[in-house]
């Protein structure tokens, strides 16, 4: 009985993670993208909390609160501020249209299930069954990074990638050691802040945050 709520909670959190990523790829509105990212952060925190409660690990529950604060609130807030500041509304020129993006998503999801097989054979259970979701998020992050040209979209892609890695970490081993977790969280926060400043400067310099304008340096 006690495992069944665990199974369901993990499944639910993983489902929300996957769903928010699909919404991210589907919608071109940047405001909607940032909102989806915030929901995704909350779902990731919930996932960590569920694992922490199930394993009776107070440290993991504390980390869940950190994840909630960072990925559920702080990072989306920074992104939203940046979006409002440069008055960015939509991703105007994605390299893939919506249909092709969704098709690519389904292919990437299948790929994720394929490469996750070692986990399923190594330690079968509800957490390893959800690992493909984490890998999917990593691949979606790559898709967004390679096909979206708006600076904010690129930031979103980077954060989806990071969420995917965190998902895999928590599902496979209950998270990396605390000092590494803290260092990695700080690094991600600083990278996002730096990219935010660069976005503002690029907008000021080029008149838009469309990265297709960044084409001066090449051989």
């Amino acid at each position, binding site marked *: 009985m006690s495992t069944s709520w665990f199974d369901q909670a993990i499944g639910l959190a993983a489902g929300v993670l996957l769903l928010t990523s699909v919404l991210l790829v589907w919608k071109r509105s940047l405001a909607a993208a940032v909102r989806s990212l915030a929901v995704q952060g909350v779902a990731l925190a919930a996932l960590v909390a569920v694992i922490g409660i199930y394993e009776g690990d107070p440290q993991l529950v504390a980390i869940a609160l950190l994840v909630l604060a960072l990925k559920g609130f702080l990072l989306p807030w920074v992104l939203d501020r940046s979006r409002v500041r440069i008055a960015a509304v939509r991703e105007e020129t994605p390299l893939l249209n919506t249909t092709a993006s969704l098709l690519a998503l389904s292919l990437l999801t299948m790929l994720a299930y394929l*490469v996750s097989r*070692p*986990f399923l054979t*190594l*330690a079968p259970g509800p957490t390893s069954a959800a690992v493909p979701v984490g890998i999917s998020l*990593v691949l979606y992050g790559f898709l967004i*990074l390679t096909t979206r040209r708006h*600076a904010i979209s*690129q930031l979103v892609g*980077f954060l989806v*990638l*990071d969420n995917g*890695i965190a998902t*895999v*970490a928590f599902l*496979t*081993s*209950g998270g*990396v*050691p605390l*000092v*590494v977790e803290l*260092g*990695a969280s*700080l*690094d991600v926060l*600083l*990278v996002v802040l*730096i*990219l935010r*400043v*660069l976005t503002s*400067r*690029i907008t000021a*310099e*080029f008149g838009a945050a469309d*990265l297709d304008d*960044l*084409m*001066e*340096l090449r*051989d």
Partner: protein
Amino acid sequence: MAVLVLLPLVVSLVLAVLTAALRTPLLCRYAGVLTAATVLASGVALSAAVLDGATPTAGDLLRVDALSAFMLAVVGAVGLTATWGGLTPPGGRTDAWTYSTLVALFLGAMSLAVLADNLGVLWVAVEATTIATAFLVGHRGTRTSLEAAWKYVVLGSVGVAIAFLGLVLLYAATVSAGRPTLSWIVLTQEHLALDPSLVKVAGALAVLGFATKAGLAPMHSWLPDAHSQAPAPVSGLMSGVLLSVAFYAILRVQAVVDPVLGPGLMRGLLATAGLLSLAVAAGLVVRQRDLKRMLAYSSIEHMGLLALAAAAGGTLALAAALLHVLGHGLAKSSLFVVSGRILATEGTTRISGIRGLLVRRPGVAVPYLAGMAALLGLPPFSLFFSEVAIVVAGFQRGLGGVMVVAVGLVLVLFAGLARHSAAMTMGGSPDAGPTPDGTSLGPQTPLVLALGATAVVGLAAGPLATLLAEAGAVLAGAR
């Protein structure tokens, strides 16, 4: 002993905080030089301690073996060359406090990377180098430098994130083996029963990620942009030692993965990346139009050679790779410092815009030629010996075919670099000035010391030879 280990980290942090808080001209000018000198002193002292048989540690996370001590000394030596050589002549403009603060933090992050025993902490430190250098690359605030900074931060952090995924999977493998750890010494010494299929994915991802940061092809596209747009001393630091620190991370990962899987996987990945890097560098150096981009592509070449040395494996190849790290770091940072002076005096880094430098500006041209001779691997410079040793080791360990192709590509690069350098220094000057200007536009001592050291260590290595052999054995002992 723990004091020596913590010294470079504490000094860099304290100087960075002081510079940011006080912003006095003196601190803004010398914070970087002081940090680099501390790192070098600490590295040399730790090397001596390691040669005496000690293994200094500080807490659970920092541990200094021969490899760490050597790399710390390289970070210090290259850092000192770049920061000291990069000092503008007195009376010139003083650097902004942000610049000095970030340089001090950058040196501290690289020191942490080589001192960490924990692969996760190593990762955090490598990511921190991206953070510290982001605004250094974009320091000039021009359109091109913003573009370079954006590409650098996005590609750098995405690449390094992939390495993190690799480390996460490695950690998962240790969890299922019943001994959760990311400690390098535990991973290499305790022969944990790690799941091979998991380690295979983990190792490939970690190497792929750190290779992005090391500028190995095909993940190199950020490198020429970032290195050409950053201020000259920062280019010297990034090219001369940041790439090598990322390569050091690859070596540590390789030493963990090889005993579990055999050398096949890493050898295949590294040999491919190495040859590809040499080919990309050869293609783009030959028809290069910009001096700093040419030097950047030369760095990709040397990273390719290091990757080939790691692919060969064994004590000889690894010791040669480390000697190569030192020689390349000193020569490349000197050349970038000189490129900054060329930009200052000629107003351009376009190769076609720089002519007759030896006649008009011997104070700049002579160090440039000496540095280029070292970089091209002419004897007596140490790069000659390390390159020969890498090729010999490759043949010994069954990579003969790869080495033949590599030597061919290195010769193409040699021709390209030599042709451009000859054109800039000796080519006919359209408007030859009336009098030669011997001023050096900056301190010559660091360049003399760096290039002098490069010339001497190959012939008379002394205790360095023992240190290199021990560092090679630290890695090779694991396989």
